[in-house]
Each structure stands twice: as structure tokens, then as C-alpha cells.
């Protein structure tokens, strides 16, 4: 087979890529010296994919599914006719799990021994749906409790409330797991429909890392896929509502059992569709800009900290997805109103005074170091590699793109993105009394 091998001399890493027909795209990053082997199998199907159209089948019928279906499917895919895949992984001492995000679902395991067996299991269970109405009903109790758990999590609530305020119609505004009500509408039939739409190998990818041999992995995957009869992939058209630039509401407040208020502030980005290097650039540049304004080495942070308006849990970040993007910042505070005022003052001052070259160099260096440091973790490498791949981004381009960013680029984002009209605020506050 033809490997497409990419070597990154800075990182000292090599990633092997093979295209299979039908998919999935296969990536292997051998990492000697590690006992752990880690493999993931991901599909481009997340919580925002709740409205879609599939070509063929006598015209393209528009399908709408209940909120939370991708996550529900993730839970139920572990089932098989004899029991469930968890139990089988357990026999090999492998640790298996899965997670569902806004745009993708990932199945994973890590192990030290019995890699081949465990990997076969991963390939098999992800490709073998077995849904019954009885097991779907039963899962509603479990996921119901998962939802309840998140209802009590102030970080989670303040975050989703913010997305709900930033976005008018885009499904990113909804909880990944859906609601107790929405998941009650899920049936075995709906799960099959989604499965057959989004779990076609062409819509999926595999990443393996640890002390493994790419050749063997390739053989194993090819053999496993060859034994299955996939019809040619159909084009999936994902339907997202047209999302205006305006935010839905400026402020949202929820009372919860917390010790002090929690404050999140978001800035909605305005692109309608972005991927590849342009998207990566957008992400890195905005993150860099945020560090230059709010970073721990900047005056604003120290001042707000000394005035007791924020604590060490304060954080900033930028999320760059193909159909949406936003800046998020926040943390715990004694006075959300005052904190917001001060943040605005800081942003306006930065706009007036301009960004500083010295700070630019320092934060760039830090981002470079952070990226390298993260490569200690096999999970970090695999999870990010595919998450970026699904946005048509080569994860190994991070350092290169980071270098391309100029101070002018940041000035532009500062003025175009961190604007009053694009912001919304979410506050979780203690119950009165």
C-alpha cells in the first residue's frame, strides 16, 4: 500500500496516512517507549447534525432527528447481540470509552497488552449497530441521570447558557446530550437511520498511536473492512439554519447552588463557513490575541486579580468550527457587572494603544511551547489530530501557521471581532438568601 508519510522534524514525529476504499482514513503515529497504545475511531456526526438530507433513495428527503441523538447513539453502539463491547474490552484489560461533541463522535480504547484483539473489537463494535426498543428505553434512565448531573454543573450551565445567548438558531446552542424530553422521542429506528447515514466508513477516520507498527495496523483495518459490504457512500447534506450575525440575547442569568457568581462572556464570530488552513489561522490568531490581552503575564489580569474580580480559574479561548466560531472568556467572580465593565475598558484601551510587539513574541513562544508539551500525551495527539482532520486541517501545521501570524493580523481581529455588537454574557448566580 502507499503510505503518505509526514515527518515533522520540530516535533520529532512521523504520521503515516493511508487511504482505504471505502474509507475510513487511517492515521498511525508510532511512539516508541510507551507501554500504552491508544486508538480512536471517529465519525463526523455530532450534536449539531440533527437536520440533514441524503442524496438518492427517490429524491432527497429532509430528515430531522431529536436533540441528543448523536450522544444517545454513542451510548447504544456499545450494545451487541451478546451483551456489550465494554465487557469484551474488559476481558483484555483494555479501557474503553467514547465521547460526543458538537461535530463528531469518538470511540476509543487504551491498552498495554492484547492490542490486536482490542483493536479488532473497536473496529467491530463501531461497525455493528444493534439497537432494540427495549435497550433504548432502558438507556433513557441512564442518560437522564447524565443530563441531571450536568444540570447541577455550574461551569456546564454557564457555558451552554452563553451559547444559547450567542446563537439564535444554530444547533450549537443546544446541549449535546439533549434534554430529558427530547431523548424520550428517540427510537431504535431513528438510531438506525442516523447510523446508516453517518457511520459509513467514508465519513470516518481512525487514529492509532503508541508503540505500534503501521504495516500491521493497515493490514488489520483493510482486512476488517474488506469483510463487510458497504454500498457506495451517499452524499450527506447537513442542513444548518441560516444564522444571522446578531446575538440572540445580550445577557442570561441562572440561579444555582453555587458559592459565588460565575461569569462567561462570548463573542460570536461572523463567518458562515471556514475550513482548512484559514480556519486554523483564525483559531491560533484569536487565541494569541486573547493571551495578549487577558494572559496571566498581562497587566489586566494582575489588576483584576488584585481587585478580587477574578481568580486563577479565569480562562480564555477560541473555538473554531467550520460552521461557527466564538471567543469565550470567564470564570468565578464576586461582581460580574464590575468585571464586565473592566474587561470592556481593557479591550478599548488595547484598541486605542495598540498591541505590543514584545508581548506578541512572548505569547507566540508560549503557544509553541504549550503545543510541544502537549505531545507527551497520546490522547492529546490522537484526539486533536482527527478533530482537526475533520475540519480539513493538518494538525502538524500548527507550528507553521503560528509562525505566519503577524501583529497586523491580530490588530484586525481585535477591531473586527471583539466588538460590542457580537458579545453576550452568561451569569450563574447563587440562589438569593
Amino acid at each position, binding site marked *: 500500500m502507499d503510505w503518505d508519510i509526514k515527518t515533522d522534524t520540530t516535533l520529532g514525529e512521523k504520521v503515516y496516512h493511508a487511504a482505504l476504499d471505502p474509507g475510513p482514513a487511517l492515521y498511525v503515529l508510532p*511512539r*516508541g*517507549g*510507551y*507501554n*500504552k497504545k491508544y486508538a480512536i475511531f471517529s465519525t463526523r456526526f455530532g450534536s449539531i447534525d440533527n437536520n440533514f438530507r441524503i442524496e438518492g433513495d427517490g429524491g432527497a428527503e429532509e430528515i430531522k432527528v431529536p436533540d441528543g441523538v448523536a450522544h444517545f447513539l454513542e451510548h447504544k453502539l456499545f450494545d451487541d447481540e451478546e451483551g456489550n463491547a*465494554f*465487557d469484551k474490552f*474488559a*476481558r*483484555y*484489560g483494555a*479501557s*474503553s470509552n467514547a465521547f460526543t461533541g458538537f461535530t463528531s463522535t469518538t470511540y476509543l480504547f*487504551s*491498552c*498495554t*497488552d492484547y492490542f490486536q484483539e482490542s483493536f479488532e473489537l473497536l473496529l467491530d463494535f463501531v461497525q455493528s449497530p444493534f439497537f432494540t426498543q427495549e435497550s433504548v428505553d*432502558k*438507556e433513557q*434512565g*441512564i*442518560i437522564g*441521570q*447524565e443530563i*441531571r*448531573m450536568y*444540570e*447541577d*454543573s455550574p*461551569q456546564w450551565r454557564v457555558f451552554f447558557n452563553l451559547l444559547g445567548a450567542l446563537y439564535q438558531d444554530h444547533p450549537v446552542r443546544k446541549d449535546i446530550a439533549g434534554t430529558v424530553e427530547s431523548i424520550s422521542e428517540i427510537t431504535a429506528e431513528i438510531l438506525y437511520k442516523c447510523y446508516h447515514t453517518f457511520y459509513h466508513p467514508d465519513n470516518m477516520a481512525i487514529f492509532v498511536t503508541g508503540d505500534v507498527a503501521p504495516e500491521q495496523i493497515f493490514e488489520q483495518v483493510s482486512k476488517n473492512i474488506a469483510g463487510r459490504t458497504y454500498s457506495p457512500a451517499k452524499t450527506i447534506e447537513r442542513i444548518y439554519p441560516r444564522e444571522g450575525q446578531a446575538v440572540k440575547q445580550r445577557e442570561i442569568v441562572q440561579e*444555582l*447552588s453555587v*458559592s*459565588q457568581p*460565575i461569569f462567561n462572556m462570548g463573542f460570536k464570530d461572523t463567518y458562515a463557513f471556514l475550513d482548512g488552513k484559514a480556519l486554523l489561522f483564525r483559531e491560533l490568531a484569536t487565541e494569541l490575541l486573547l493571551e495578549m490581552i487577558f*494572559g496571566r*503575564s*498581562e*497587566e489586566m489580569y*494582575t489588576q483584576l*486579580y*488584585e481587585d*478580587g474580580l477574578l*481568580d486563577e480559574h479565569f480562562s480564555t479561548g477560541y473555538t473554531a468550527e467550520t460552521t461557527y466560531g466564538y471567543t469565550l472568556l470567564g470564570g*468565578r467572580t*464576586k461582581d460580574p457587572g464590575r468585571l464586565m465593565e473592566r474587561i470592556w475598558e481593557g479591550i478599548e484601551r488595547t484598541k486605542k494603544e495598540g498591541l505590543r510587539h514584545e508581548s506578541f513574541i*512572548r*505569547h507566540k*513562544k*508560549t*503557544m*509553541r*511551547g*504549550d503545543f*510541544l*508539551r502537549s505531545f*507527551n500525551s*497520546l490522547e492529546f495527539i490522537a484526539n486533536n489530530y482527527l478533530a482537526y482532520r475533520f475540519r480539513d486541517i493538518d494538525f502538524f501545521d500548527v507550528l507553521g501557521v503560528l509562525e505566519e501570524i503577524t501583529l497586523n493580523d491580530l490588530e484586525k481581529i481585535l477591531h473586527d471581532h471583539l466588538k460590542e455588537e457580537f458579545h453576550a454574557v452568561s451569569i450563574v448566580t447563587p*440562589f438569593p438568601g
Partner: protein
Amino acid sequence: MLALESRTLPTNINLHLVPIEKFKTVLITAFLQQSLEKETAAKTALLPAVLERGTRKYPTYRDIRIRLEELYGAELGLDVLKLGERQILAFSLEVIHDKFAPGEDLMRQGLTVLKSVLTEPFTEEGVFKKEYVMQEKEQLSKEILGLVNDKVNYALERCIQKMCAGERFGVYKYGNVEDLEDITPGGLYEYYQSLISENPLDIFIVGEIDPQKTFPLIEETFTFLRQGMKKSLPQVEVQNKPKKPRYWEESLPVSQGKLTLGYRTNTAYRDEDYADLLFYNGILGGFPHSKLFQNVREKASLAYYAFSRLEKHKGIQLIGSGIESKNYEQAREIIEEQVENIKAGLITDEEMENTKRALINQYKIIGDSPSSLLGFFLDGIVGNRDEEVDCLIERFGKIKKNNVVGAAQKVALDSVYFLRSADNEGSE
């Protein structure tokens, strides 16, 4: 396999080097131990926060952060740990390895920053700067009160606090708010000086390093004055056979109730049969194949999570699960039944085999992360157990059902803590 090269400096600092090639970073961590006591816990916890605010060389927090960023975003982490009845201050600095930053000497420079934070605090009139202490008291007090924000942890911690109310282990790792109030910059500085010069101090370095060069480097870096005498801290109290389980309940406006059961294991980390206890915990609730996950979640659909975990140094096992408040009786019954079943020897061969493999897997990957390596070595120091990972792995292979039953039979239920969702609020 995981070679640890240790040496004790004349100043009574224990140095441990872990030369290991596969990481991109070099991690340096200093662990300073103190006995966990109600009177000193808040004071001890306040120290790292104040030290991180400024040093002689880098007088402000900002100066420190700028220096760290110049070192390719070296990560300085100051943490307060609670291991058994020890409160441990962890001062960590992680830099990328020099091979990724040609021409730099990041480890040496990072070490200078770490040393500065640990041993050369910024002072005014011979004591800690007043503003730093005052501000950090406020921040720490918020941190202590903030425990309630994470309900999963809150429920576990509350169970411990109730269960061990009269013991040192019942003290929260950050102490309590009342004990913060009286702390003065002078008093804290004095306390700091005694702690840094007398208490057990271990420094670890993990990464691609050359011990021949690193030992002298550390020796010349950490030249501050330490007492030559070894100060010994009190041992943890493990044995405890409760008479009748106690029950505690608290109501909060939450969606989900949190059930926590606290058991006394009567097995210490240093005990010969600790591996049996670990095995027992694995059968009961350490993994998805364990009895708790299988019965509370998979069979009864009562919860999303149901686990057991060990406070290994104290000899406590905690079981936690998030449930509908109305299902309290049923969930508790199922949980206790699982414990009783193991005591009665109702363990399948498959459960034995799965647990053995899962534990082996868990311990084999310890060496794959610098921080988990440090965790393992620190456990050994605090718990007086000098055993290599490989030996423990070998033990798992030899454990039989009767060993597990033996460990299980020493375990006794002490306290049940239930965080109930208040009637008028909660789920919508």
C-alpha cells in the same frame, strides 16, 4: 524498569532523578510535607499562593509569568495535596526539553525560577508583603467555599468530613475559612521559614536528563539553609472498626441526589495485603466491568455513574453515585448488596480475570506520564512502601479469590452521606 536514582543532600533534601527519554519535557517537582492538622491546614495551604505572588528576583506575579513565557511557556504549578494525614505542597515546573529549543538551557533557567519561588520570597520589612497575604487569604477563602460548586466532589468531601470529624483526615486540604482569619504576614513568614527548613522535602526530576550533570546542578541550586536533622511527621491512623453505620443528610436545590458511602478498609498502603484491597476495589467499583457499574447503572438504570475509590493512605473506601433522590433506598440496597456479595465470595472467574488485567494495564501505564510517575513515587514515600511498579504488577497476577474476600471482610461501613435535592427546587 523505571529507574529512580536517589540521593540525600547534606541539607536534607531528597533528590530523585528519573532519566527517561520518551517525553518532550523535563518536569521538576518539589514536595514539601506537613502533618495535616486543623490548626495549620489553612496556613500551609496559603503558602504556595503567597509564594507565587512574587520573589526577590521577580517581585510581582507578572514578573514571574513573563519569565516563564520567555522560557517557552514553562509551566509553573503550585498545588496542595492531601495524602492520608499529610498535607503536601507541590511546586512543579515543566519545561520543554532543550532539544526543541536549540541554544537554550531551559532546565537550568527553569530551575532558577522554581528555586526563587520556593526559597526566596518577596518580602517587605522582613516578612511577606501584606497585600499579597491579604489578597491570597481572600482568594483561598473563596476556593474553600467554592467546593460546593462541584457537586460530585462536594458529596465525597462532605462524607469524609462527617465520617472523620474527630480525625486529622477530616480536615479539608485547604483548611477552613475561620482558621484563615488570624493569619498575619509576620506569622505566616515565620511559619514558612520553619516549614522550608525543617519539614521533609523531596525533589524529583523526570525527563531526558543526565544524572551525572543533574545531581551537581541541583546541589548548587538549592543551597538554602536546612536543618541537618530529619523531622519526622506523625503516622496516619488507619485502623478503625466502626460499630454502627452513621447516616448524614443534607438538602440543596439540585437536580440530582448524590449518594456517598464511606467504608473503613483497615488496610494501610504499606500493608502486605494492600494489593488485595486494590483488587477488591477493582471488583467492586473501579471499572466499567465492576459490580457497581454493572448493577447500579447497567441493570437498574439508576445512575450514570457509580464507582468506588480508595483513599489509599487513610484506609478509606468511598462509593459515589448520582441518582434521583426518590431512588435512594433502592440504590443504597443495591450498593450494599454488592459489598456483601464480595464478602461472601460471590465473585465470578471473569470478574477476577478482568480485574487482574485492568489493574495490570493501569499500573503498566504509570510510566507513560511524568505526573503519574511522580504520583506513584510520592505514594511510596508518604506510605512507606518501597516497591517497584513491576513488583506490584506481579502481585496482581497471583491474587486469588480468597485474598479478595479477605480484604473485603476487613472493610466496614462507617458513614452514609446523602445530598438530597430539595423538594421545592431541583429538576425541571
